[in-house]
């Protein structure tokens, strides 16, 4: 099963809609609670990142027997220094982002902590965040 969601830049009213649908789907699939929470926390952080930092993008959500795979693609402007962006507390977010409860520089570190595999590729044309959650681990049994 693969689903796709559009993510609109700077739209805080709709931010979280994709993760909400992912959450409902995992619940309906009876995926264990702690596994669900891990996927959803990472998904929500990634979705918010696209809303905050990009000019817009989309996400795909794939479920197969081995894993749950989330991909977030945006159309730029890209992350100049990924290593720096992975540092807890590093942020380029605006006051508006802070007023919405995000932008503290915890997004990417939180995603890394929640997922089993994370890769980030970025250039001026956009960023791709790839997150894998392996099924059959302790919290999915």
């Amino acid at each position: 099963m693969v689903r796709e969601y559009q993510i609109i830049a700077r739209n805080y009213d709709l931010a979280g809609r994709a993760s909400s649908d992912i959450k409902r789907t995992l619940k309906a699939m009876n995926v264990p609670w702690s596994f669900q929470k891990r996927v959803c926390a990472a998904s929500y952080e990634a979705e918010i990142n696209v809303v905050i930092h990009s000019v817009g993008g989309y996400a795909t959500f794939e479920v197969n027997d081995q894993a749950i795979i989330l991909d977030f693609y945006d159309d730029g402007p890209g992350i100049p220094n990924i290593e720096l962006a992975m540092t807890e507390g590093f942020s380029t977010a605006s006051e508006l982002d802070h007023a919405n409860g995000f932008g503290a520089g915890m997004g990417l570190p939180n995603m890394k902590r929640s997922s089993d595999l994370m890769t980030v590729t970025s250039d001026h044309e956009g960023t791709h965040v790839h997150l894998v959650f392996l099924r059959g681990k302790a919290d999915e049994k």
Partner: protein
Amino acid sequence: MKLSDIIKKYQCHLYTPEIYHDKEITYAFCADLMSDALMVLNSVKDDRVLSECLLITGLTTNQSIRTAEMLDVDIVLLVRGKIPSLKVIDLAKELGIMLMSTEYTMFNTSGMMYADGIKGIIYNQQW
């Protein structure tokens, strides 16, 4: 402490129907930064902790409701008498999250609840 007692003691104003009237509240977490809530509450080891948990926040946007949804927290308590917008109330109703507010500040709310025996959630919280 029963949710109904919290509503009475903290003079909470309810923005959504009182759907969890008899719920026992054992834990609470307060944050204005939703990444903090996601990180700490995501590390909880037992689902009973979050089902008996209040999210105390000063953030009146959709994001406090979405964060509660992601973590399976049923109740969001706004502090300092903050008034959420209609779209936030509608989202809470749609997701079955109880949204309420108290006039007490975040510090005072937390301190009073701690004195009432409600425990704060820490990283990797066990029941």
